[in-house]
């Protein structure tokens, strides 16, 4: 019985219920937007996913900063977990955005500031993860990776500023079928977007938590193996020393 109750109140179940509700809201409850038509429903997915990607960057840089400051492994694990989940969210935000842009803006991709910024940041954090994969393990890897994450975070406003200035100099091609249309939905749009954001935030937290825990177990196994080998080596030495004396 307690097992059932635990399952019901567990964050995973909560997230599943929320996600289901969100899908119901997106597909059933909210009316179709008149100017963009059905494709506007993509935004209920795209916006929260992009928000998740942004959260990823914030958590990575905060975790990296705290790691450099406190030198506690916890923060490094948090940073790498949210970097990975953030890259997944970021890639999805780019893909869903492109699929939305095709029918609405008539192009898959354009030099709009937010798009450019997202793409560049995506590449920076992919490079962050690759750096971690290629660098020999140890505290130096964690330290350098933390620096890269912070550099990426500091670069973010500069990239956005540059991309913005750039798109002013080259007005992006946004002349598609419903480019300038305003929403005909008003508050119901906000309700669905809010619900969707809440459920994707929860999904983000859950994924980060799972990744964090796997990372933690991996680290602990590594530490254990190292210590254990050391112990057995010491024991061997002792027994050898006894044997010779």
């Amino acid at each position: 019985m307690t097992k059932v109750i635990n399952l019901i109140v567990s964050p995973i179940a909560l997230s599943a219920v929320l996600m289901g509700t969100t899908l119901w809201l997106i597909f059933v409850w909210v009316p179709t937007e008149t100017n963009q038509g059905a494709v506007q429903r993509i935004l209920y997915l795209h916006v929260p996913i992009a928000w998740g990607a942004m959260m990823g960057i914030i958590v990575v840089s905060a975790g990296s900063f705290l790691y450099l400051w406190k030198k506690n492994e916890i923060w490094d694990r948090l940073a790498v977990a949210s970097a990975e989940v953030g890259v997944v969210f970021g890639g999805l935000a780019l893909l869903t955005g492109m699929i939305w842009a095709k029918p609405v803006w008539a192009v898959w991709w354009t030099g709009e500031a937010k798009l450019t910024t997202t793409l560049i940041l995506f590449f920076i954090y992919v490079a962050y993860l690759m750096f971690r994969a290629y660098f020999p393990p140890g505290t130096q890897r964690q330290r350098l990776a933390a620096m890269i994450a912070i550099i990426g975070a500091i670069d973010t406003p500069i990239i956005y500023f540059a991309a913005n200035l750039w798109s002013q100099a080259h007005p992006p091609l946004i002349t598609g079928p419903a480019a300038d249309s305003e929403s005909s939905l008003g508050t119901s749009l906000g309700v669905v977007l809010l619900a969707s954001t809440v459920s994707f935030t929860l999904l983000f937290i859950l994924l980060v938590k799972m990744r964090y825990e796997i990372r933690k177990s991996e680290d602990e196994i590594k530490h254990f193996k190292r210590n254990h080998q050391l112990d057995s080596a010491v024991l061997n030495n002792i027994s050898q020393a006894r044997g010779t004396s």
Partner: protein
Amino acid sequence: MKLFNYGLALLIVCVGLVVHDLPSLVLAQSTPLVNGIIVGIETNDNDQLITFVVSDSTGTLTTFKVSDSTKYGLENQAGDRWVTSHKDGSEEAARRLSEHQERFVPITVSYSEATEDSGQITGIATSVVDREQGKLETNLGYIFAVFAITWILFFAYIFYMGRKQKVVQYEITQIKASLK
């Protein structure tokens, strides 16, 4: 295992909703609407649109007045969509609508403040757009693509984590065995 249960539950909910509610997705509407073709247009001396009359499939006529906040989303024959409000394009609106009248292109009008006077309905148009039905059908593929890609990627990531977890679990059992 927990991860997969969660994933499976989500997948079932997602697929179920999409299959079950596809018709309502297509039909869902927000404000009172009239679908039909334009049968009459009235403009003032400056060629600005004042009222227009729409006939729906049953032949019922509805007269719409326009206000500054009326929005247009109208395509020309080439399929280029023109989107603006009445305030910024009242002449162009008259031109486009008369072109729609000539081509018998169905439009969708959402309206407010409807009054009925001896069977004649009059309302103030809030938006005048090319009929949504066709667009919905052509664009459902995009929605499908987005939802499919999103969930496939999330599940792929969860699967990747599940495999990592398996490796961890295996190593833990190995260590436990070696300690005994």
